[in-house]
Every structure is written in C-alpha cells, then in structure tokens.
C-alpha cells in the first residue's frame, strides 16, 4: 500500500478536497502542484485565491497561502511581490474574478508587466453560486440567469488571453490550456512560472475546465463540452511566448 498520487506540494490533511466529482478546476490544481514540485520552488511560492470555487483551494497546498476578496487577488499579490520580490506569486482566480469584477486589475497588471503568474479557470459559468452567466458563457449556453440560453445582447464570450495579447509586453507569457490535457497544461504552467522566476514578465494561463455539476452533464458530456465546444470559441495554445522560454 503506497501513497495516493498526490503532488508532493499537496496538503494531505485537506484531502479529499472540497471540489465536486469530475471538476476540471481541481484537476488543474493537481497539475499546478506537479509544476511547482518539478520546478522545486515550493518554499518560495505564495498561492493566493479569489472568491468562487477557487477559494475551496485555500488549504489545498503545502504552500504559503492567502484567500482574498473577489477580484482583488491580483492587486494583493502585486503588493506582496513589491514588498518581497523574491517570492513567486500565483494568483489563482476564476472567470468572474478575472474577467468581470477584477478585470481592471488583470488589464493593468498586464499593461504594467507585473512579474506575477495568474492562472484563470474558465468553466463558462459562475459555479460556486450555482451556475450563473459568466463573461465566458457561450452563446446559447443555458445558465440560471440565462435560462433560455445566452443571447448576443448579453455580450459575446470574453476572450481574455486574446485581449491580454494586445496590451501586454513582448516579455509576457500568455497561454490557454485545458484541464483534460495533463502534459500540455503542465508545460504551460511551468513556462508561466519560469517567466516569473527569470524576472522576465507577466504570465497568464487560462484553463478550460469541466464543470459537470453546473453544466448538468455527465463525465463524458462535460469532457466533450470542454474539449469540443469550448475550444471552438477559445482556441488552445500559446498566444505569446518569449524566445528564452520556448
């Protein structure tokens, strides 16, 4: 009988973790844990979470961690980094924290080339509060506040990395991955963190994540929705990658 397949950076005491069965966000957190483990930066990382399902990871890791107010994770880690520059700061947020209530902080962080790493979970809804419309909800997608499906008058899906590409520095790292592709996402997380370790610039990874509970889909259907439907609107890949990281 051996140990479960946890990254060494996972806090065993808080397991099984609080995420729903089949949650892409928790899968991303496992992959992030592996990235931190492989980069050997566990003692240097500050893991900051927002409000929403991300706050369920407040004690996920054996890392110095802090949970903040909705949308304010980025300014908090920016202030921390300015005060203690040797820290590797990670802002772990959702589509609300990044693209709605905290959008101006994300934008300004990119335009300021803050040497921080932001990981944003895109599950196309506001999950913790029961599945409302999010900036990333697809057109036609049903949520509790768009019961007939999202209409164009409510805006079109928010493409975060694409926006950041326009306003960020050339030394920034921007990518979009998917929770169900372990190897690719692991590479993206490591590059993003490396960009901060090297002191080069801002790094951002959006992760498409399954949310079977609020999508009201089973495991197969939720995998399909993220891998086949969401990728039509949110293409996977690196949008910006400094040469030294390639």
């Amino acid at each position, binding site marked *: 009988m051996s140990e*479960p397949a946890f990254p060494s950076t996972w806090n065993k005491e808080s397991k099984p973790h609080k995420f729903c069965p089949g949650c892409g966000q928790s899968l991303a957190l496992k992959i992030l844990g592996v990235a931190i483990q492989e980069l050997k930066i566990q003692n240097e990382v500050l893991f900051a979470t927002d409000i929403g399902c991300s706050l369920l990871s407040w004690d996920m890791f054996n890392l110095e961690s802090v949970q903040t107010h909705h949308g304010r994770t980025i300014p908090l880690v920016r202030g921390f980094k300015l005060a203690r520059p040797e820290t590797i700061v990670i802002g772990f947020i959702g589509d609300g924290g990044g693209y709605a209530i905290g959008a101006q902080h994300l934008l300004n962080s990119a335009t300021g080339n803050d040497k921080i790493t932001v990981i944003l979970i895109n599950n196309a809804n506001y999950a913790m509060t029961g599945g409302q419309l999010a900036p990333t909800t697809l057109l036609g997608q049903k949520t509790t506040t768009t019961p007939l499906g999202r209409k164009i008058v409510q805006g079109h899906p928010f493409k975060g990395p694409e926006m950041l590409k326009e306003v960020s520095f050339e030394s920034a790292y921007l990518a979009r991955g998917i929770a169900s592709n372990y190897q690719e996402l692991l590479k993206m997380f490591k590059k993003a963190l490396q960009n901060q370790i090297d002191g080069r610039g801002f790094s951002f990874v959006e992760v498409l994540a399954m949310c079977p509970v609020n999508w009201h889909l089973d495991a197969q259907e939720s995998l399909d929705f993220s891998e086949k439907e969401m990728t039509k609107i949110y293409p996977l890949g690196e949008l910006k990658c400094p040469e030294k990281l390639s």
Partner: protein
Amino acid sequence: MPRKIILAGEGGQGIQTVAKIIALAAIKSGKNVTFLPSFGVEQRGGVSIVFLQISDKPILYPRFAKANILVAFSSRAISPLKKFLEENSLFIYDNSVVENKFLEKIKGQIKNYLAIPAQKIGRERFTTKVVNMVMLGGMAANLKEINFQEFENALLEELAEKIKEKPEIKDLNLGAFKAGLEEVEKFDQETQPLEGVAPASFKCFFEKENLSWERFPEYCKGCGLCLLKCPVKCLSFEKENVGFLGMPLPTVEIEKCLGCKQCMEICPEGAIRVEKQ
C-alpha cells in the same frame, strides 16, 4: 405537536430535495411549514443541513435548538447533528453508509432509531442518484399526519422538469421511495442494534509483470473520468465496493492495462497510482 426535523449529509446527496418534498406534502395536508437550508460554500461535498418544521400553528422562527426527528445521510453528518438530540428524538440513518466509528460518538444518547440501508438499495436495485428517495420513504412512514398520497404528488411535482427530460427517472424515484417505506415495515429496533458499516477492506492493489495499478477509495468520488480516458477500456465501476461519499469505485482488468497512466493523469483526486518499470 410540532415536528422539528433536521436532515444532514453531504452536499449533492439530494437532502434539500427530500426536505422540499416533505414540506410540499405537509402544506397540501393543511400544515404550516418552514424550511431553512444551512450550507457551506461548496456546491458538493460540504455539510448540507436542513431545518424543517411542520405544525398546525404558525411557525415564527425557522431554526430550533432540539429536534424530534434527526436524519443522517452520511458519516460526516453525525457531528453537526449531535447537539440537536434530545431524549426522545427519533434518529434515522443510512446504515449502509454511516461508519461505526462515527456512530460511537452518539450511540449513548439515542433511545429511538431507524436504520435504512439506502445506499445499498439504491446501488443494487435502482441507481445511486435516488438514494435520497429511499431515505424519504423512511421519513414518510414516521410522518403519519401527512397524507401518504401527498408525498407521491409532491415528489412528482418537485421532479417534474427532470422527469420531462428523462421520463425513465419517474419510476426510479417512486420505486426508491416505496423501497424506503418497505424497509420501515421490516425494521425492528428490538432486534437490530444501532450499527453502521465497518470501514471496508478490499483489494486496491493490482499488479502484473512490471506494472501496478492502485486505487485509493478514501479519495475517489466516482466521477468516471478515468473510465473515459482509458485507451483500452480496461476500467469499469464495481457493483460492490464504494469510494468516498459512497460513490461507485473503478476497478481494473489488469491483464489489459498498458500502464499508459492516462487514468492517473486525469484523476482530479489523485486516487489512482500507476507504476511501470
């Protein structure tokens, strides 16, 4: 005499639905009702508690200090329920899920109890999604002041939308409800001790030649992603053993396993370990 019912279990077990059905049935039977959920932030897996009151008189305050009926859907429900016990409370619990070591904490204080193997019945005869309806049967049998027919009506009303989309669930839910009622008929406190399940001990480590596949039931939530990602479809859900939250547990046909580690990678819980030399 006013009923003060407290239900507790894991978020996602359908406790709110069951309490709602009782509330609707009570209203149709001319009773006053208040229903107040108390839950943590998680969508699933946090503690879910419902305060339910049924009375002939108007009810002014939805919460209460002591309950006359307590219903435990999971092991972790025992701790929050403890303080609501009073001398003559009726304690209803799922004895196919609640572990003995949790019952130890509360045993001495209980005089009246009802054990229903709801998870087992759900798993063996229906689906795990209707386990809550089996428990509903147990509760309905002890709420004689509510017309029995109203329970069925309320159940169908509450699930109307879902039944429209998937008509087959109607019989599953009603069947589970009836199964719960039957259990109450069979139950005899004199002969059945206040016991639950012992933690299971079953095979978790599978190996062949230079390859091993190991599962960790205490972390597995039965999401099924591993089954989907296996390129040779050598994983399947077991009938017998269960993981955390009483969810179905995957097992492996080790002879077919390639050791590709897809299942290990996709598991959000870290509940599968594959080693290959």
